[in-house]
């Protein structure tokens, strides 16, 4: 470094050095100016924020009104305007996301919701909305995850009810996906915390019916009936549950009560008709005479024969009347072979014949049911009786 350089540098900093002797004063002045400016901008900021808040609230109110009025497109624009003035407002963003989702703009709603979830991971509504969007998208695993997050999330109002509602929605979703076991486990978890509410109990009972857990379904309907004996939906549900469990007497009783409470319940009427037929056509039921039993067997045999003819099973046309799959005599051959032997007298004399005849009837009903679809009327009743017998034998 030359002498000249040193001198130049010293000269150039002389002004600053002059001030550096007065730094306390300068710093005091600068600090005072900074504080004064800060206060002035704070005043301005308050006015700005007040205006922004008012505008945000104004647009939000309009948006909610339009949303409730069904004008979702306009509501979205207004929610966006509200957002513009209250950037980061959780409620506005959530409403916007919900409206977008309702409009089918799932991707936009999804991105808003993800952002909201980052802010409040435990928010029940956000998790539920995310679950719904992913459920619609078909991302089942993620949807279930978000449903569970929603169930265990924080809810501001009536958390128990909200969690129940979400779990019921999850069960419905699982049933749509045919995940009956998962749905059943969710229902069992839900069952423990159900309040004494007839409609809710009946709904849960119906969901148990869909998961094919008929015992729990019947229990739920019975609980509902304890609260309201004449509740038509609960009676119908109990009737169906008992019917599915093969308890046709119980089913008949519930279904009769259901029809008494609601005569227009066609499903219950059909079920009742079938239940009565089952009870009538079952030759093994107690407290009937031998003659009556023989008549029932003969009637069942003839019904099965007609079903056999109507169904026209492919094996019936096999060479020499043998079944193409088992090389055993076909059902038709067996039926024709047995037909001449079956008289009321012979049936009364030979109980084994009655049993063989009913076995053939059950075979016919089961095979025709597999080949030609679900039967109706007496055939359906015979099929149900066959299943009942099978389960009793087991």
């Amino acid at each position: 470094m030359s002498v000249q350089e040193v001198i130049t540098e010293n000269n150039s900093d002389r002004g600053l050095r002059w001030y550096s002797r007065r730094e306390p004063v300068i710093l005091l002045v600068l600090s005072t100016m900074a504080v004064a400016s800060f206060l002035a901008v704070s005043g301005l900021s308050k006015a700005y924020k007040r205006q922004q808040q008012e505008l945000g609230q104004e647009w939000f109110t309009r948006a909610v009104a339009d949303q409730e009025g069904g004008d979702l497109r306009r509501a979205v624009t207004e929610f966006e305007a509200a957002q513009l003035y209250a950037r980061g407002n959780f409620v506005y963003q959530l409403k916007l996301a919900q409206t977008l989702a309702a409009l089918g703009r799932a991707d936009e709603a999804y991105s808003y919701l993800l952002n909201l979830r980052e802010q409040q991971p435990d928010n029940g509504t956000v998790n539920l909305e995310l679950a719904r969007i992913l459920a619609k998208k078909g991302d089942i695993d993620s949807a279930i995850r978000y449903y569970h997050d929603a169930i265990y999330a924080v809810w501001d109002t009536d958390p128990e009810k909200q969690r129940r509602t979400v779990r019921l929605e999850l069960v419905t979703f699982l049933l749509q996906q045919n995940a009956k076991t998962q749905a059943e486990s969710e229902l069992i978890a839900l069952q423990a915390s159900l309040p004494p509410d007839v409609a809710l109990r009946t709904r849960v009972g119906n969901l148990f019916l869909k998961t094919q857990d008929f015992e729990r379904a019947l229990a739920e309907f019975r609980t509902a009936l304890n609260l309201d004996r004449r509740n038509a939906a609960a009676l119908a549900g109990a009737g169906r549950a008992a019917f599915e469990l093969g308890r046709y007497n119980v089913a008949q009783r519930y279904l009769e009560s259901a029809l008494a409470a609601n005569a227009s319940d066609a499903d219950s009427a059909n079920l009742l008709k079938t239940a009565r037929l089952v009870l009538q056509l079952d030759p093994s039921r107690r407290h009937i005479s031998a003659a009556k039993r023989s008549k029932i067997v003969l009637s069942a045999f003839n019904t099965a024969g007609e079903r056999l003819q109507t169904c026209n099973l492919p094996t019936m046309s096999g060479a020499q009347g043998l079944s193409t799959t088992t090389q055993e005599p076909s059902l038709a051959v067996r039926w024709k072979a047995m037909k001449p032997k079956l008289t009321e007298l012979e049936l009364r004399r030979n109980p084994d014949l009655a049993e063989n005849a009913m076995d053939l009837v059950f075979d016919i009903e089961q095979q025709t049911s597999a080949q030609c679809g679900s039967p109706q009327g007496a055939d359906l009743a015979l099929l149900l009786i066959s299943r009942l017998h099978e389960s009793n034998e087991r």
Partner: protein
Amino acid sequence: MTELSELQSMGTALEGESIHPGTNPQKHLPHTLFRSFFQEERFFLILSVFIGIFSGLAVVCFRYAIDWSRIYLLGSETTASPWRLILAPTLAGLVIAVLVIHVFPQSRGSGVNQTKAALYIYNGYIPFRTAVGKFITSSLAIGSGHSLGPEDPSLQIGAALASILGRRLHLSRDRMRLIAPVGAAAGLAAAFNAPISAVLFVIEEVIGRWSAGILGSVVLSAVSSVVVMRAFLGAESLFRVPPISRVRPAELLAFAALGIVGGLAASVFSWGIVRLRPRLKALPKWTQYFQPALAGVAIGIIGALGFPQVMGAGYEFMDQAIHNQFTWEVLGILAGLKIIATIASFVSGTPGGMFAPALFIGAMLGAAVGGVEHQLLPHLIGSEGTYALVGMGVLFAGFLRAPMTSVFMVLELSGNYSVIVPVIVANTFAYVISRWLQPTPIFDVLTQQDGLDLPSMEELREADVLRVEDAMQPVKDPVLDADDPLERAAQQADKAQSDHLLVRVRPAGWSVISKQELRTMVGEGKGELTLRSLLRVPQISYLHPDYSLDAALRQAYRWPLVPVVSRADYQKLEGVITQQDVLDRYRAVSEM
């Protein structure tokens, strides 16, 4: 005492005299401690914090002014009526033209270039009127829907405030030159809510060199302005960034394609400004009253035709693009229309910046390219939001030619480091293509069009640094040893071609002696004494091969011969250098 140590002691004396005139520092210890704390460097750092605070406050007010302009001119709804969309920018354009022509003539043009001009030409001077003009005209322009951004004016407002503060404090010329970039960084940091990007941009595009002194001040001002801004406007970044999944290696090809498209778009954007700006400036002066208004009409029509997104800075729409809220066709149209609208606004002389429009175009283009690629290769391509983010960086690299800033800006805005590789890949392509199609960066072209001669930061960055190894010569003459008798040294010197010889002074020093001196001393009968005892200059400076030639010149003019030694072994001679060698090298380079 060597010449250097003499100079150093002289400098210290001067310094001491000026700081403590007529006093003994040892006698006033508390006062001395107080003095040493408030040394110039530290005082400048403290001043940088105040610059940041004032700039941050100014930027907050500027943001409020833009929002109020928008609300009162375009209404509080997201999309105004078609007539309002056309009338607001048109009428605002007329007012802006009158203000720019008659009241604030300096508010026209790029704030980056004006800050550079303050640094390199005007010794840090930026008139207060420029800041006021930028504030009023830019807020009016952006608020009324002109396709411009608030970052460039914020940068200039920060620089102007710093300049005013520097002038009031009568800072030295060197400090005054630095103070404008310090304010510029503060203004930009507050506008972007991104201090790292602001610091990098100012270093990369305004100052053009890194040094600890500058960096400290720039960082302090940027950070303090961001803190102030966040106190009023919140800590949220400009965009809500969705979760970004890890990018697969094969997807980098898709990002390279985005870089190519971005580079082409940046070139078209630059080309439009470069061609049209001088033509409009060359029109009769009376037309300048109507140019911003005509640009306003054009932009208003675009808005009324169903694309109001191109009006103003458009941050909320960039946010929507990041969140896949447009189809790729709409995104492509928006990118194209934004280029047209921004060119119209900027070349008409309407004050405002091009940072936000560049980000807008990049976001739309990125999301559009991502959307197309997603349709073609649905299993390969990730979220379009990632492409929108990368697209912003691409335009920044291609259009503004700030490669470092473009990378860090995306990282800072996204807060996600998994995008770093895609950003680097895409930006590199965009930068290379843009340089190929538009060799001169946009800021340099604008400077030339304004008749100024400012250093090109791109050229500075890429200038070849000449080093000692480029000019040094191999050692041809014998090297004397300081412990040898003078007689023997003189015999060795007789074999040398040059007049001066190097003397190795163990354990790790070097000196130089002339043949004439040796002969004289031998003649005086000192032949049996060691050379060490007779050396007039016991130690001279030495250089390493990687030193800059500039550093070599400072040494070479003081000594006839300077040793160039290895960094690993100071006694190992790599070569020698003289003042003539340095000058010959500079001459050779200038003739190339």
